[in-house]
């Protein structure tokens, strides 16, 4: 995909803004233009949180999302508000444990054990990085190597090992393609 719109949606504190920033960094390194916007509630944890990217090969006219090509759901909270924004055939990646109820529709749903995989690695907070790995594994949004490089550059050293393992697990889930619809 050259020009596309993607949302990371979940609950405050799940690292959605970090995922969006890392993906944006990777896309910019690949020469794309990116506009990033965010919305969250006035609480430090919990509440609807979302991070949106508008990605283009050239100049971005309108910087906010209007029709999503990719939706990543780490919690049930953003499902209702985000589903109407999907473009027909959009890619939807959802955490099977925390965002398991996804309405039927004209989209390519990948219901995956994102948070379960992070828990198995020892820390549920790495769910956001598992999700990035899935995006790399599916191979439609961003190159694997660029994403891995920005994770290496952008994550605090003491969490790097956990994040790299979370990323690798996500890649594995993505390459398997998930159970599909």
């Amino acid at each position: 995909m050259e020009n596309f719109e993607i949302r990371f949606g979940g609950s405050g504190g799940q690292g959605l803004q970090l995922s969006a920033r890392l993906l944006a960094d990777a896309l910019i390194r690949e020469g794309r233009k990116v506009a990033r916007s965010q919305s969250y509630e006035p609480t430090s944890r919990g509440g609807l949180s979302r991070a949106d990217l508008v990605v283009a090969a050239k100049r971005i006219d309108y910087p906010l999302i209007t029709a999503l090509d990719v939706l990543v759901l780490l919690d049930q909270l953003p499902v209702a508000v985000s589903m109407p924004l999907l473009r027909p055939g959009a890619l939807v990646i959802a955490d099977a444990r925390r965002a398991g109820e996804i309405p039927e529709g004209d989209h390519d749903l990948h219901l995956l054990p994102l948070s379960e995989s992070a828990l198995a690695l020892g820390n549920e907070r790495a769910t956001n990085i598992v999700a990035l790995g899935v995006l790399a594994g599916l191979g439609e949004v961003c190159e694997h190597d660029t994403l891995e490089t920005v994770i290496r550059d952008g994550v605090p050293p003491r969490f790097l090992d956990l994040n790299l393992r979370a990323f690798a697990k996500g890649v594995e889930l993505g390459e398997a393609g998930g159970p599909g619809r």
Partner: protein
Amino acid sequence: MPSQSTARDLQGNQACALGAVAAGCRFYAGYPITPSSEIAETMSVEMPRAGGVFVQMEDEIASLGAVLGASMGGAKAMTATSGPGFSLKQEHIGYGAGAEIPCVIVNVMRGGPSTGLPTRPSQGDIMQSRWGTHGDHSVIVLAPASVPEIFSETIRAFALSERLRLPVIVLYDEVIGHLVETVEIPAPGTVEVADRKWATGAAESFQPYAVTDDLVPPMARPGDGYRTHTTGLTHLESGFPTQEPECVERITRRISGKLVHHRELIESYEAAGCEDAEIVVCAIGISARAARRAVNAARAQGIKAGLFRPITLWPFPESAFKSATASARTIIVAELNAGQLVLEIERLCGGARQVESIARVDGEPIEPAEIEAKIRELSSHG
């Protein structure tokens, strides 16, 4: 230090702060308020680093007071706020306009009136930015529509303020303020820093408000030995108060005349696809970004649509607008308020063109589809 420019992903408010630093700002006083707080946050880091001063004041009124004082002391100075704080600053904006004190005031607009919608976008201060303070006064308002433009227009705000000796306001909405885009940051020391016109020559004959060819009186730099006087009362060239009608008129006309005399320096705008346009959309900030996509979509459908975007909002670029809309039958004004910019456009069109308003007041930005639908509707009615 990098010797070349560097591309950085910045939030609009960070870009504003870094633009100010690049422009030579070395004094910031403010009182944080959403959605402008990141400007104060960034300045609290950048000012000490640049050898400048950051002060968190007790309120918005005192913040601009401190900025005016710092400017008279010779520093390039700035404050930032949002609508409610901007209202509080209005008295001091008038003082800055009357006493001709350079300063930059940033207003990141949120929903109002009063506490309103602190985290939601608005463009409800278009008229407050022009007419908020009392009396006839000169003020320049710049309205960037992207993160790179916030950076460059903040630099321009300092240049105009210093060069013309008046308060300059940078006005943008919450969406642009919190958006993250890539900004090309020039290498340190490569941005031309505007210096104000300082007094030179004999100290005995110095007049702080002397009439000069460019209508901008040189200022006395503290410590240079010039005797100066500043007051909010209407004053003579000497700086002392007067009520003599002919003096009052002369002074008042000179101050307002600065904007006319330097119009070319002040005015900035974007006109896209206007040459043959039947319908021109006029908007600022995030609404102009939506308008650009809508106009492109309309063009792709064969509709002759164009975009006029004032970058200098006040004084409104009148002649550029008139040339850009020469072939237009209809003007659509898209804004996040109940209809403010549309009043200026109606005045400029003088009944000669159909003027339509898209005025959104629900705390959400105008989407491209709304404008595109309006363009199509008005086009088919043609």
